[in-house]
């Protein structure tokens, strides 16, 4: 292959690569925030049974959750988070839950979580891979506890 042909080939490769980057650009431009699914579950030893809405959450039937007699879904919310903007999540009247997206460039979304159920509070910073659910538990609620499920994915 002579020098001229190589140069032409190089230009061709550069053009294809540029086209690929441009094709990705629109998706990148839209990924400015995340949508978080927040579940608020009351676990209790009262005879409330198991809420049918929770049948798709097998984690509740395993330790350390397994053993409570009843589970009731108190809230199932979809929260849009924009970077740097705290969002109040209304789960119960006595529980303050604030979520903040603190970045998502090159990593899974970084979510700050602030929970306050007097006298308990918790602040956590999580790297939450898209669609991966984590649970926060142990906050007091009536005669049982609250279990907060959180999973986030880019919009």
């Amino acid at each position, binding site marked *: 292959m002579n020098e001229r042909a190589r140069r032409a080939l190089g230009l061709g490769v550069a053009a294809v690569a540029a086209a690929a980057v441009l094709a990705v650009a629109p998706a990148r431009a839209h990924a400015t925030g995340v949508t978080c699914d927040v579940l608020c579950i009351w676990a209790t030893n009262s005879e409330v049974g198991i809420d049918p809405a929770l049948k798709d959450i097998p*984690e509740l039937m395993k330790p350390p*959750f397994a053993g409570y007699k009843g589970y009731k879904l108190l809230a199932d919310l979809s929260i849009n988070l924009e970077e740097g903007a705290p969002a109040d999540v209304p789960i119960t009247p006595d529980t303050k839950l604030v979520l903040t997206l603190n970045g998502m460039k090159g990593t*899974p979304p970084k979510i700050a979580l602030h929970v306050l159920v007097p006298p308990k*509070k918790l602040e956590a910073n999580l790297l939450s*891979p898209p669609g991966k*659910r984590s649970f926060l538990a142990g906050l007091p609620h009536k005669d049982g506890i609250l279990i907060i499920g959180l999973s986030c994915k880019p919009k």
Partner: protein
Amino acid sequence: MDCARTRELLDAYADGALDAAEETDVRAHLAACRLGCPEELRAIEAIGERMRAAVGAKVEAADFSRLWMKVEGGIEKEQAASFGERAKAWFSELFTYRGPVLAAAAAAVLAVAIAFPLMRAYTGKGPGGGDGLGAAGLVDILSLESSGTVTVWPVAADDGSETTIIWITADESVDAPHEGTAPVPLDMMVPGGTDESRPAPLTRATQGTPG
């Protein structure tokens, strides 16, 4: 073959590690020996059997999932590296010896290979609408601060993935966890009484003061 030589070879014989000629000689000696060689072989076989049973039980009881995750991670890294090297060599060869059509086709494949992971990273979706970047990983806790004691568990799901559970352990001022359910201090193991299938806590930290 005499008894001394036979006994030297008995371990290898029991393991099936002798060549055909030695195995024939040992077998012939064992058939005729009245001086304890057959008993020696039975003793060796019995010890081997007990060891296999003990090791087998330990292996069955052990949880290799974390080890396997690490091994799998290492394999993936190795594969990624070797693929990169192979692609580089192949692409370089194309530029040097092949015609422009082949090189352009290779460039197009490379462009798609670059573009697809980027799309997954930014949209969180792969083919079929599945989870994207990091979907197989655990939620990573960067920092944790609480009014009480916090315990973190990884819990295995049926699909082999793991879920992270952050549990604020009860303190004196509020509800006590339900017996056999909620976390107890680390030195008392983990929830669920004596159930060995329960998850073990990942980390545990007490920060701040209650209330």
